[in-house]
């Protein structure tokens, strides 16, 4: 029941928005719904850690610790994004870039998007998971193209075509898994259920599972933003409205990665851990090198953030490749930390873009002097994202490195760290140009209102908090890690 509530809440929010007729303030309904979903998610997490997995809706929905964790992540980011979204649509409406109808569409689609992601992580069946992930693609295409500029349309076209291809490959992989599962005596209706898959995992046909997993990594990897099918990501993230970029970069990528994690657990049992590890290491290093190379001479700060996401997805993939409980716990912590920091950064970059009128790095100067609040949040967000303490990304990156060394992936960890240093060099250079320097003649403008700054600062505070304090999450992380760890 509670799981259905979690799923339903965002949709209720969507209903309210749809009924409200395009007033931006109705967005608060979405914020409330997402906040409530977050609350229920936390409650679920507590229960799951105490008493074990929950099921709902006749077994279609199932929440173990991993799902609960993902629900929390989605809830947090959705809360942030829908909150700032109110500001975004209000500004657009005020500037005449939007209509009331589009405001409504936007609000409804965002809520549908959140619901689809929640469905993806709460689905008991990996087929339903696939359907939900594909649904996110369809829903977000319009959100990416929300601005209706040529760039936005181009980005959404690329986004849907590339992701559809990818997700189709994932479907082929799912079919192969299904085929393998049927052969070990699974009942056709629940052969794709997570519990049944795990129960029979050891007997699944290894060669079939290898092919299936390779397709799944390639397919879901497209949505995750792993190289070589990452190309949609910088375009889509740079063209989408800031809250959408935040949602996509902050959680959508990791929801897709959640799917890979689930399948990886099955494949590890079926064919041993070596195969999934090798594959993930390859895509991880490929993604990291792509991100490093393209960040060096990046000119657009939203694209910079997007490539930064590719880097972090590479890191997460590398952590998952290690696969031991420590690694998975670190991966999950990283998912949360990255989600928080990245969404705050995208939301801030939206504010910056609204204020400065350009997304070019060259076009933004001396932000800290001219717009201290925005510049400060952006700078601290970058500090968080670059993996510096006290933010949780530091802890998770360190934990992942430790885990990788422990399973003999030290060389890959070293390669990743080299790429990270290059990325650090690049991002610091860009940040320097954007943030530092004399204010010049430009007038210092008023900071964004408090209700806008609050979630941004709050997101960073939470990110720092979970980086320092272990107790709020440790139980959940460990329980979640044991769901899919080797």
């Amino acid at each position, binding site marked *: 029941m509670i799981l259905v509530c979690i799923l339903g809440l965002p949709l209720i929010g969507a209903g309210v928005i749809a009924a409200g007729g395009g007033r931006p303030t109705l967005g608060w309904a979405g914020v409330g719904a997402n906040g409530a979903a977050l609350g229920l998610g936390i409650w679920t997490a507590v229960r799951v850690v105490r008493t074990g997995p929950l099921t709902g809706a006749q077994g279609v929905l199932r929440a173990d610790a991993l799902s609960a964790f993902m629900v929390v992540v989605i809830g947090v980011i959705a809360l942030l994004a829908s909150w700032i979204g109110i500001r975004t649509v209000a500004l657009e409406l005020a500037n005449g870039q939007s209509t009331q109808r589009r405001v409504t569409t936007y609000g409804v689609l965002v809520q549908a998007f959140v619901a689809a992601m929640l469905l993806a992580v709460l689905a008991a069946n990996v087929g339903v998971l696939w359907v939900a992930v594909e649904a996110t693609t369809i829903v977000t295409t319009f959100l990416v193209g929300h601005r209706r500029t040529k760039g936005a349309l181009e980005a959404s076209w*690329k986004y849907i*075509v*590339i992701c559809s*291809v*990818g997700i189709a*490959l994932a479907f082929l992989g799912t079919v192969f898994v299904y085929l393998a599962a049927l052969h070990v005596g699974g009942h056709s209706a629940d052969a794709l259920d997570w519990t049944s898959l795990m129960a029979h995992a050891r007997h699944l046909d290894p060669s079939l599972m*290898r*092919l299936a997993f*390779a397709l799944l990594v*390639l397919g879901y990897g*497209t949505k995750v933003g792993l190289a*070589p*099918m990452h*190309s949609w990501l910088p375009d889509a993230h740079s063209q989408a409205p800031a809250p959408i970029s935040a949602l996509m970069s902050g959680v959508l990528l990791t929801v897709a990665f959640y799917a890979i994690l689930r399948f990886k657990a099955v494949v590890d049992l079926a064919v041993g851990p070596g195969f999934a590890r090798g594959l993930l290491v390859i895509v991880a290093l490929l993604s990291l090198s792509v991100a490093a*190379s*393209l*960040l*060096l*001479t990046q000119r657009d700060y939203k694209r910079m953030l997007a490539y930064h996401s590719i880097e972090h997805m590479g890191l997460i993939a590398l952590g998952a490749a290690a696969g031991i409980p*420590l690694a998975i*716990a670190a991966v999950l*912590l990283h998912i949360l930390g990255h989600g928080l920091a990245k969404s705050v950064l995208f939301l801030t970059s939206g504010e910056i873009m609204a204020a400065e009128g350009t997304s070019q790095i060259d076009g933004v100067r001396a932000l*800290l002097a001219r717009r201290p609040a925005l510049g400060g949040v952006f700078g601290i967000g970058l*500090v968080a994202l*670059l993996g*510096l*303490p*006290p933010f949780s990304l*530091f*802890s*998770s990156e*360190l*934990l992942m*490195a*430790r885990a990788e*060394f*422990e399973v003999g992936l*030290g060389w890959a*960890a*070293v390669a990743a*760290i*080299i790429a*990270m*240093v290059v990325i*650090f*060099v*690049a991002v*610091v250079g860009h940040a*320097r140009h954007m943030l*530092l*320097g*004399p*204010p010049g003649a430009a007038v210092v403008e008023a900071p964004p209102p408090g209700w806008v700054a609050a979630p941004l600062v709050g997101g960073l505070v939470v990110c720092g908090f979970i*980086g320092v*304090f*272990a*107790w709020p999450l*440790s139980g959940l*992380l*460990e329980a979640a890690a044991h769901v899919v760890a080797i």
Partner: protein
Amino acid sequence: MTSDLLVVTALIGLSSSAVGAMAPLRIRMHLSVALTIAACASGFVMAAEVLHTGRAAVVHTTALLPQSGLSMVLDRFGALFVAVSAVVGIGAMVFRLGYHGQGLSSRTASCILPLFVTTLLLVPAAANVTTFLFLWELMAVTSLLLVLVDHRRRSEVASAGQWYAVMTQFGAAALLVGLVLLATHTGSQSFAAIAARSTHLPAGVRDSAFVLVVVGFGSKAGMVPLHVWLPRAHPEAPGPVSALMSAAMVNLGIYGIVRVGDGLLGGGPAWWWLLVMALGALSALFGSLHSATSSDLKRLLAYSTTDNVGLMLLGVGASGLFASTGHRALALVALVATLLHVVFHAVFKGSLFLSASSLQQATGTRDLDRMGGLLRRVPLTGTIFLVGGLAMAAMPVLCGFVSEWLLLQAMLHGLPSSDPAIAVAMPIGVGALALTGGLTALTIVKAAGIGLLGQPRSTGAAEAHEVGPSMRLGAAILATLCLVFGVAPFLVVPSVVDAARSVTRARIPDPLVGGWQVGLAGVHGALAPGLLALALLIAVTLVAGARRMLQPTPARRTQAWGCGRDLQTATMEYTATSFGEPLTRVFEDVLRPAHDLDVSHAAESRYYVEAARFHTSLDDAFERHAYRPASVGLGRWGALARRVPNGSIHRYLAFGLVALIVVLVVVG
């Protein structure tokens, strides 16, 4: 008791940071500085207690730091560094009370500065890999932000910050890999467990961990060739921050190398330490040479930090080399000398940076060529600078002399050695030490002589006024310590010996003679700095008395002798640049000064020169020949990489198709 103090120190530090962030502007600065001083005092008391009793302060909790837990153990070795940081912190914070420049009064800075000081106090207590790296990186971030506080006014700040960020991150990456390598192979991330099990590790692991750690800590310490950030960042930071960075933070680089090399790894083969010595000698020479030829006061001091870190590394290397060849007592002496130099460097470099900032505030410039005549105008600050400088130049009866002397002794007594490594390393080491010492003396004569003495070279210098009392007090505390430690080294030597013994775990008797002398046990002769000071005082007083007796009338003030010229102006004085010019000529091959001569000819005839402008500049050779090409290379690679994603969806899909085909063929 000490464990509680550890918690208290951390809490006071954090609360002062919170006060700095939240308290109203009127009381913000004073309250947060007071709390920071309290944190330093508490840290000092804790460190003194640990040093005295030898009982470590221990704090463990799993409630902090996700999935690994916070673990802090402050032993005597760490306590020494905490004490040093605390003393420098107190000096810098007292100084900061009167310091109103360079953006340090902003809310951000008031929040970050106490945090930085707190991390300086806590890093040496970290007892597992995660805790250490967490605090280490926190220190890096906070110091970086503090370097940047003045970015609005001067564009060099941003560039300095960028260099610092990149180099420190590079170092942190090396450190991370090195420490994690050790943690993985010993199966535990706790320092105690690593130390217990590390001797059984394969040589390859130990070697690579050590080299990585040297790189990591070396970059923080400003070791050549990873020093390039230091002469940029330290000068651009606000005064108290540059003092903290140069006098307290770089020490932690030495701390780390000793902690890992001697503590966690329990010593290693000779080549490790020869490497450290070589890097140390290189740093010392390179640093002192640049310091001697620099005319920017704070840049000069920053390079001299590299130079002093080189000396410390020389000592660390010598100590390890002795240990690896079985000379345990000498190893301890060399380590004690190094740690003494750490302590003394902290006080003299702290007083130098603080007084240099005062001079900067008083004159409005850092350029030595625009100073002059300041000892008459800002007498106390000038004297403090002079005392710190002479201590750095290892002048007798000031502290730097004692540590350099002890280091020389250690190298000397290692010498009748059958080990060829020692036989070759020690004379070269002494040579490097000596040249460094000579160059440092030159540097200080230049800095003090050009900066403080003679006629003022600019209106800023001519109209300079003494800075506020708290600034004078903060610097004076450290300068007094230079003198006190120089005359009475026995105040610190026993603690330093204890600290060195605790990290090497050497069960050998104290290799030093005690009491008011410093010297090696069992060796004829020792140094009695107190007596030397007394003798010098008596001799100078006697000579002064004699002079007064012979010529009771005071000196007649008259215009300086300028060969009868009408005017004797400041532009006729020697400048810092010209002072260093002979040296630049001598080391032309190393320094490669860039000369630039612009001659414009008169319109009437090319045989008449209308104006000539000569410009000379000294770049850092490593920056020019290593870092710039690397940066250009990265840029080229980035530009090349950009061409691949050209925006065509077909190309993007083709990547996918190729990947799919590869997957199908390989896996299917």
